[in-house]
């Protein structure tokens, strides 16, 4: 059977749509089969909440009297990029405070803004005829900003490697604290609930897709950075890091429940972002995609003691194994930790489902699709001639 976006939206508006989370639909497919489940269900909701380092927000402060063209900007002593017109800035999530104290950074500024807290703004300028002022030191909050929107260049990674540590010392990484001699292994995907694992070739997710972002509504803006389609697949889904999304959404309407500053010891700040994407069940193929289970999704285990971009996978394990609490590795049971919160992923998928059942969240057909083929290039040292 076939369904269109328009048909589903009509049902959502009337309150007649059948919406399920990507976890709930697994049971329906097991019970009734793909064909019946396709007839039954209109939309499947997904969710993920994890550390998404490539995140940040554009802010417009408004013009001071006399006006200033800010060249350097600090928000609570965290540098923000302001090489954009006069009073625009971009605050990046992983930017640490300038005083060397890395446990407060851009992610904290963003969380503080969403929480409605006052944030100290300092800026300097060289002064121009049109912008004579050379410095400003004041307080702002979400209420005083003209625009404040998150623009995250790389979120919601489609799968990711599992981290472990073969060395003799504890490693502090963006994959968390890794104990020596394979003392633990950490992973970071919502697996069967994760948005891009439920639509692995992005048939329904593209530019303009409306999503749940940080508690509010946002949109897919572009392909995420490091987007690649070349990862090997198992059971129709990539094993390891693959596609990703660039997303955009207003900070107003977001909640600190779904946007949280995270502090990775000796690595620095990162932003915990909650994302949910509704997937329309257009036909049997889509239903087959969303019925993917944790035991069918695999990720490579990588040794972070190898300080190289070319880490050889030690083995592949399924999310069902990872979630069981331990995996077999180097001849022993190694305990596992999730870095992304399955609890919050479920909460997001359920919230999105509720919003659709109430008619508050409608589907959008992508304005343009994301690339079907894209390889990821490394950064190597080149001469001017080699890159010309």
């Amino acid at each position, binding site marked *: 059977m076939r369904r269109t976006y328009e048909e589903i939206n009509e049902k959502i508006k009337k309150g007649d749509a059948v919406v399920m989370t990507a976890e709930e639909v697994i049971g329906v497919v097991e019970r009734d089969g793909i064909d019946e489940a396709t007839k039954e269900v209109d939309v499947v909701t997904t969710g993920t*909440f*994890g*550390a998404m380092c490539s995140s940040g927000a554009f802010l417009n402060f408004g013009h001071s009297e006399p006006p200033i063209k800010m060249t350097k900007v600090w928000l609570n002593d965290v540098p923000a990029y302001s090489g954009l017109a006069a009073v625009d800035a971009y605050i990046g999530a992983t930017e640490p405070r300038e005083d060397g104290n890395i*446990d407060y950074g851009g992610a904290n500024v963003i969380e503080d803004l969403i929480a409605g807290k006052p944030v100290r703004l300092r800026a300097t300028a060289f002064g121009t005829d049109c912008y004579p002022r050379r410095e400003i030191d004041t307080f702002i909050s979400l209420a005083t900003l003209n625009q404040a929107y998150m623009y995250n260049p790389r979120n919601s990674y489609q799968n990711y490697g599992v981290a472990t540590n073969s060395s003799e010392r504890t490693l*502090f990484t963006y994959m*968390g*604290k890794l*104990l020596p001699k394979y*003392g*633990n*292994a*950490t992973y970071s995907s919502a697996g069967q609930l994760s948005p891009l694992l439920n639509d692995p070739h992005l048939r329904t997710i593209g530019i303009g897709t409306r999503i749940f972002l940080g508690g509010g509504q946002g949109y897919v803006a572009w392909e995420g950075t490091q987007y690649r389609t070349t990862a090997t697949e198992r059971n129709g889904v990539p094993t390891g890091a693959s596609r990703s999304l660039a997303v955009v959404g207003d900070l107003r309407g977001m909640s600190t429940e779904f946007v*949280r*500053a*995270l*502090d*990775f*010891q000796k690595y620095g700040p*990162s932003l*915990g972002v909650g994302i949910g994407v509704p997937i329309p069940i257009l036909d049997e193929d889509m239903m087959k995609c969303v019925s993917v289970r944790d035991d069918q999704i695999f990720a490579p285990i990588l040794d972070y003691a190898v300080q190289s971009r070319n880490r050889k996978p030690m083995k592949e394990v399924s999310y069902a194994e990872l*979630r069981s*609490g331990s995996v077999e590795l180097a001849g022993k049971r190694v*305990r*596992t*930790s*999730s*870095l*992304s*919160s*399955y*609890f*919050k992923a*479920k909460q997001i998928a359920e919230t999105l489902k509720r919003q659709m059942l109430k008619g508050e969240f409608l589907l959008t057909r992508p304005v343009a699709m994301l690339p079907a083929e894209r390889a990821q290039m490394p950064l190597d040292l080149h001469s001017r001639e080699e890159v010309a």
Partner: protein
Amino acid sequence: MPIRKFELTFDPDIVSEPITYRIVKDYDIMINILRAEIDDQGGRLMIAFEGSGPQILKAVKYLEENGVQVQELKEFIRKDDTLCTNCGMCVSICPVQAYQVDNKTWKVIFLNEKCIACGMCLDACPPGAIKLRAQI
């Protein structure tokens, strides 16, 4: 048999006394040394006593009479559930599995009675939900 955890602080002059031996031999207490440190300030021992209520009391009295400062460890770590995102990073860090994921609710639960006050989780929690009780 009840288990109670204590932090024992010694002056340098009694570090050489075989105190744990006496507790086992004279008071019939099963001990589990959780942590032990000795430096120029003296010694510090985190220890769990398993025995009857009166036996433990007698052992504590013996320690105090011999110049050992005894402080019961009721709560060393506190997980702030308003900050916890229930990710589960702490779960594989804890050597005694005091953090567990409830696989019905997917919440991370802290079991205070299992905690041995090692402190390994303190620098592992990304949202900063785990703190020393003394710092709260």
